[in-house]
């Protein structure tokens, strides 16, 4: 009952100083708004990365050459890595239990020509597991086979965008295409798939047998003269056996590369989960960092509330004296001012939330070259925002309210 009265008093008092209340709330609006926007965009970014990895399947391991002499993460940078992995390594890994698919891949940029039409694409030299492990559907024709691989056939499978660029609406299957002045036969077209996370298009790919790639397009040798493989994706039965398989692959490669105990590896084995974890750590750090910047504006907002509440208490000293004289207790005055501060903060927070909602929605509509960040203002974020607003209101209101409640009614009545 009293609470409703105090609520009314607080509303009246805030409305009687509209401009001041609005400016005070602005601090909270900006604070809560920016924190939520940064949190939701951060969450959206993380979702995008996670879903990209999940699309590839989390039960994948990546084997890549590394330079044992290069420090830290530079060891994996292509420029530093020595070509150390061979097709024989691929065969050895294939025999590991729980491995359900293994995809070596070498890649490069190429120009494709059909008559006068010309387009650029990424060419992958790979094997027949490629389609299944990476989850491609065929739009027409078929994918490269073991036979193509064994015979080093001059065949390619092309992405839908490549097909469209070169052939328009015609069916490219069976047609010829020239790559590096060599004729290749198109045996299949991949179904459209869109972009992956870094703006890399799944539809601008060309896939050819890795044997053909090495023999006819780009020859890359290990120091010992064998055909080198740039990377291997290993698919395992389930995420549970990941660590086990990873260890086994490491052992096999160490043995094959004659790396002794205590020496650094000339390769790296990373699970998708590890990579996902790395990205998540980065985006989380980014989100937290940006969130802290937002939190600073929240702090400034709360100082604004405290400031204005102190002014309000001083201005209304006589009113407080009167209220006390006619029977208001300490607690009544305390409640009234706390409620006022909480209301400033909560209303400001609510407006900030609404604005952030709008901005997040707007961000989600932006086409970042074919993919979007789905910035979601989740119920959790809303709950946190409301609780934080109320907390800030109470925290910044408590000191002014205690000052008001502690006023001596006699002095207060004769103030000013």
């Amino acid at each position, binding site marked *: 009952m009293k609470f409703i009265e105090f609520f009314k008093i607080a509303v009246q008092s805030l409305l009687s100083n509209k401009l001041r209340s609005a400016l005070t709330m602005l601090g909270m609006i900006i604070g809560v708004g920016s924190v939520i926007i940064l949190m939701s965009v951060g969450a959206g970014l993380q979702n995008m990365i996670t879903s990209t990895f999940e699309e590839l399947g989390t039960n994948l391991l990546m084997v890549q050459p590394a330079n044992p002499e290069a420090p830290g993460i530079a060891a994996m940078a292509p420029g530093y890595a020595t070509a150390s992995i061979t097709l024989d390594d691929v065969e050895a890994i294939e025999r590991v239990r729980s491995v359900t698919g293994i995809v070596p891949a070498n890649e490069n940029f190429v120009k494709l020509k059909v008559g006068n039409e010309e387009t650029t694409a990424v060419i992958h030299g790979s094997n027949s597991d490629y389609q299944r492990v990476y989850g491609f559907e065929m739009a027409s024709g078929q994918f490269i086979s073991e036979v193509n691989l064994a015979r080093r056939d001059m065949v390619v499978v092309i992405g839908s965008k490549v097909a469209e660029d070169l052939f328009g609406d015609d069916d490219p299957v069976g047609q010829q295409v020239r790559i590096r002045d060599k004729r290749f036969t198109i045996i299949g077209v991949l179904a459209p798939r869109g972009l992956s996370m870094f703006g890399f298009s799944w539809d601008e790919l060309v896939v050819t047998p890795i044997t053909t790639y090495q023999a006819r397009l780009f020859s890359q040798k290990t120091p010992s003269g064998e055909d080198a493989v740039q990377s291997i994706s290993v698919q395992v039965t389930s995420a549970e056996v990941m660590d086990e398989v990873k260890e086994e692959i490491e052992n096999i490669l160490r043995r094959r590369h004659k790396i002794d105990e205590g020496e650094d590896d000339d390769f790296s084995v990373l699970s998708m989960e590890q990579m996902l974890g790395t990205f998540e750590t980065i985006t989380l750090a980014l989100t937290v960092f940006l969130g802290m910047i937002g939190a600073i504006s929240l702090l400034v907002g709360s100082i604004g509330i405290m400031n204005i509440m102190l002014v309000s208490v001083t201005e209304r000293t006589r009113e407080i004296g*009167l*209220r006390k*004289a006619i*029977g208001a207790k300490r607690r009544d005055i305390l409640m009234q001012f706390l409620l006022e501060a909480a209301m400033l903060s909560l209303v400001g927070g609510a407006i900030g939330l609404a604005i952030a909602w709008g901005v997040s929605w707007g961000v989600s509509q932006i086409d970042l070259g074919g993919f979007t960040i789905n910035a979601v203002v989740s119920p959790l974020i809303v709950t946190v925002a409301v609780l934080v607003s109320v907390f800030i209101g109470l925290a910044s209101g408590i000191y002014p309210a205690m000052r008001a409640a502690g006023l001596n*009614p*006699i002095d207060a*009545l004769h103030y000013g």
Partner: protein
Amino acid sequence: MIELENITKIYRMGKVEVPALRGVTLNIEQGEMVAIIGASGSGKSTLMNIIGCLDKPTLGTYLLEGADVSRLNDNKLAEIRSKKLGFVFQDYNLLSRASAAANVELPLVYGGGGNRHKRALEALERVGLAGRSNHRPTELSGGEQQRVAIARALINNPSVILADEPTGNLDSASTDEIVSIFRQLNQEGITVVIVTHEMDIAQQTRRIIRLYDGKVASDEKTAVSRGDKA
């Protein structure tokens, strides 16, 4: 009804002790109308604050309706103020953004009780402001504002109304109005205590207590109480 026994109040200003009241003993009976007068610094305001339970005596006992209130804590005093006392101040102390009726209702916010608006209108009617309930203080004359303040003091049916220089800001016509309202309320049985320095106001009460230097200097019935023509 109001029994003061050897009431002493000493203010401490740093290291200096300033006695404001030095052993005041007096009784005010139910239904009396009393003026407390004295020069400034005589202690009349301090006495008023103690009677009004806004302040506690340093020494002595104060029985209000038979109950000792001189040693109660702030919350208990607030409760007594809201249930038994009505205050009228020199400068009205109305909330400028609230209507007359809302101002009158204010004590009920803290003291409780239903039918607030109806009771506020009744209280306004008792002070002759029935038609002004929706006006804000700024739309009312000084006399009208003070009448709103009296209605506010009346709303919780107090046993005592305490008025501190209630006519100090008013012209003579308004002063007469206010004083006659107090007399009327007194005739209805409410005890009225007025602090004033205006002798002609004090003369219209039934009893004048004069304070001098923190003590009761004189305590006399007036012509009004002796039944003489006022």
